[in-house]
């Protein structure tokens, strides 16, 4: 089949789903709406697979499909097409988006079955998928930005899906506004690149990226990439703009799984990987990215330890895992960053869906202090959730292990890396193991603290099937990117498929040499051992000896309070940024707007009204008066002629 046709179907299918469900939202039953929404994404998924197979058939250096639907704008040197670029990177990305997206749609059919606005919900989800595809496939930064804004809108709509609850609507607004700050930075970055390179086409930008390193802080590439990264911190929830993501958990849980764990929040990582030649040319930017990523890992993981809402824990975990991806980008391990993006999409979507299943079974309860012992009631959910848990804490053999370990090794070994980054990464991994085990213990294991009136029940099959698929992917997803030293001891020496696949389009950092295997084994052992100790500690504290943890938190109460209140970052932002702006705006409103601008407009209006009523009095309907005007005009005209 023609590539243009496949890409058209790829885009049209979710768009049509969005339109149908959106227009007929009051006429569909929940099941019909769910079927339409899921089918739309499934068709896209099939298209993605077809495209991927086509790419497989091409020569490794020429694996690309460029579909241009026409010119969008052409203003002097600015030429932007409705063009879409499918290569090794974007084809894998759309596979993840549509594949995981389809599973989550399927899950939503069961999860949302009791809701009134199911059709609206599915239309938003399809709208999101459409925009995510635009973001990923767009061949210029502008097209990418269109998708970037579109997913932001979808995210806003879905976070505030239950908008009658003021708090949830506010969470949606918060996400939108915080993202807007990042988007402004993204736009500035685009402007910088356009001014200096004269193009916004991603491939042209990449080919124009200077081969020499830019060592200053105020070089064109450094500034431009820094601003683009600023946009990524908004979309991908990094310091300092991560604050919206935990609040975004107000939306339905499958939305959290799809948008705020698996796909949209990774857009920033995707963008950096997409533009890797530019970022490589700016070592200072990469340093900033690595530091911010590593700090985010530790900060978010530490907040995650003290959270009691099952989704909040997962949200901070997401922020932390995204930090790993940026850490990987920052040290130049773009392949690894994408690898972690992929494995994270699997296991975090799985865990969110699992938590959705728990919440569904607990009839809306989200506080893990009121759970416990759910293993008995939700056996399948527990099993699949455990796969996600094993993956995220880095159990050897599971997907998360390969990707996270690769990131840690690269952060130590890469010429752009540093031992301090590795230390931060390992601390993060240790904390991850602790809070994830805590989550498992408090939710599924130990004594039941469920209210007597509540009868937890296992979820229906439509919700369990996605869990199984994602659990399987979480386990085996890592085998596409086995690190070299591990493959050497495995029978058959399986190659690092992902690295091989990306080799033509992803550059490596200059100066990267083969590492010392002994060192790599040692560091890997250290991080695994630390994670294991922390897991056991958490298990001991939360299952075997719950009173100890209470005494411990009592003892360090101030710190515990600080952490559980998220280091008061929100309050800090409110105190130093939001409130001053609000006060300034209030003053502007009271003095400038009301007293000056309003007055001016009223005055202008009164002037018009006054002159209007004067002119109206001239038109009094009297024929003779009109004739008099003609006469006066004649006299004036004649006098003018005479005076010359």
């Amino acid at each position, binding site marked *: 089949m023609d590539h243009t046709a496949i890409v058209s179907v790829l885009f049209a299918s979710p768009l049509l789903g969005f339109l149908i469900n959106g227009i007929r939202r009051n006429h569909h039953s929940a099941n019909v709406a769910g079927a339409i929404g899921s089918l739309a994404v499934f068709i896209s998924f099939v298209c993605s697979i077809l495209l991927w197979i086509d790419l497989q058939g091409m020569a490794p250096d020429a694996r690309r499909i460029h579909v241009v639907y026409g010119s969008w704008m052409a203003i002097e040197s600015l030429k932007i097409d409705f063009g879409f670029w499918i290569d090794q990177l974007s084809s894998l990305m759309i596979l993840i988006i549509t594949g995981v997206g389809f599973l989550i749609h399927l899950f939503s059919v069961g999860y949302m079955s009791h809701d009134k606005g199911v059709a609206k919900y599915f239309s938003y989800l399809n709208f999101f998928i459409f925009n995510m595809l635009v973001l990923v496939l767009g061949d210029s930064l502008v097209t990418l930005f269109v998708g970037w804004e579109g997913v932001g809108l979808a995210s806003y709509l879905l976070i505030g899906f239950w908008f009658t609850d003021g708090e949830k609507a506010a969470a949606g607004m918060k996400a939108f506004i915080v993202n807007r700050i990042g988007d402004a930075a993204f736009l500035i970055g685009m402007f910088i690149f356009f001014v200096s390179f004269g193009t916004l086409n991603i491939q042209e930008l990449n080919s124009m990226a200077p081969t020499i390193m830019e060592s200053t802080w105020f070089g064109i590439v450094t500034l431009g990439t820094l601003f683009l990264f600023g946009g990524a911190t908004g979309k991908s929830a990094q310091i300092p703009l991560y604050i919206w993501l935990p609040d975004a958990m107000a939306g339905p849980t499958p939305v959290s799984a799809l948008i705020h764990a698996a796909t949209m929040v990774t857009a920033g990582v995707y963008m950096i990987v997409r533009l890797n030649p530019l970022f490589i040319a700016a070592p200072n930017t990469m340093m900033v990215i690595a530091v911010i990523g590593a700090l985010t890992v530790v900060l978010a993981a530490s907040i995650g330890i003290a959270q009691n809402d099952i989704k909040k824990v997962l949200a901070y975990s997401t922020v932390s895992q995204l930090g790993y991806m940026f850490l990987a980008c920052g040290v130049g391990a773009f392949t690894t960053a994408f690898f972690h993006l992929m494995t994270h999409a699997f296991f975090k979507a799985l865990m969110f869906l699992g938590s959705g299943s728990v919440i569904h079974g607990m009839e809306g309860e989200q506080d893990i202090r009121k759970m416990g012992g759910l293993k008995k009631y939700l056996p399948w959910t527990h099993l699949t959730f455990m796969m996600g848990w094993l993956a995220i804490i880095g159990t050897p053999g599971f997907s998360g292990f390969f990707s996270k370990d690769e990131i840690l090794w690269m952060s130590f070994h890469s010429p752009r890396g540093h031992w301090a980054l590795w230390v931060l990464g390992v601390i993060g991994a240790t904390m991850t193991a602790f809070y994830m085990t805590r989550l498992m213990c408090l939710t599924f294991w130990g004594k039941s603290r469920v209210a007597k009136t509540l009868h937890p029940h296992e979820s229906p099959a439509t919700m369990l099937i996605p869990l199984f698929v994602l659990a399987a992917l979480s386990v085996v997803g890592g085998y596409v990117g086995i690190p070299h030293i591990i493959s050497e001891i495995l029978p058959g020496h399986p190659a690092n498929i992902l690295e091989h696949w990306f080799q033509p389009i992803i550059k490596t950092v200059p100066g990267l040499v083969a590492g010392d295997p002994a060192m790599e084994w040692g560091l890997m052992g250290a991080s695994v051992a630390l994670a294991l100790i922390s897991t056991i500690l958490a298990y001991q504290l939360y299952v075997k000896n719950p009173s100890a943890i209470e005494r411990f938190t009592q003892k360090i109460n101030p710190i515990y309070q600080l952490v559980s209140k998220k280091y008061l970052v929100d309050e800090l932002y409110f105190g130093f940024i939001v409130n001053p702006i609000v006060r300034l705006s209030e003053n502007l409103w009271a003095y400038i707007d009301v007293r000056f601008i309003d007055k001016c407009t009223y005055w202008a209006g009164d002037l018009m009204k006054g002159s209007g009523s004067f002119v*109206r009095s001239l*038109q*009094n*309907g*009297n*024929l*003779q008066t009109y*004739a*008099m005007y003609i*006469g006066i005009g004649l006299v004036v005209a004649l006098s003018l002629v005479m005076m010359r």
Partner: protein
Amino acid sequence: MINADFIVDVGISHYLILSAILFSLGMIGVLLRKNAIVMLMSIELMLNAVNLSFITFSKYNSHIDGQIMVFFVMTIAAAEAAVGLALIVSIFKRYKEVNIRFFEHLKG
């Protein structure tokens, strides 16, 4: 300016001034009279004043086209009088009066 010459030596200026005076008188009638029929008459007066100047120019330029113009103006004037009077008849049927203020529906 007004001297014996002016009285005795009648020329183009005299006719044109007469035409201007007649035109202004007609204009006063149009502007001031309430009766629509009298207004129509005043319009005829203005048209005649213009005709007079046409004929004057025709004579003093020795060009016959001025008279042709007058011929046309007369025809149009007759037509206008016919239509105007028909309108007035129509108004009279309605209001039993031909006062110009009945035309004030165009008020803004």
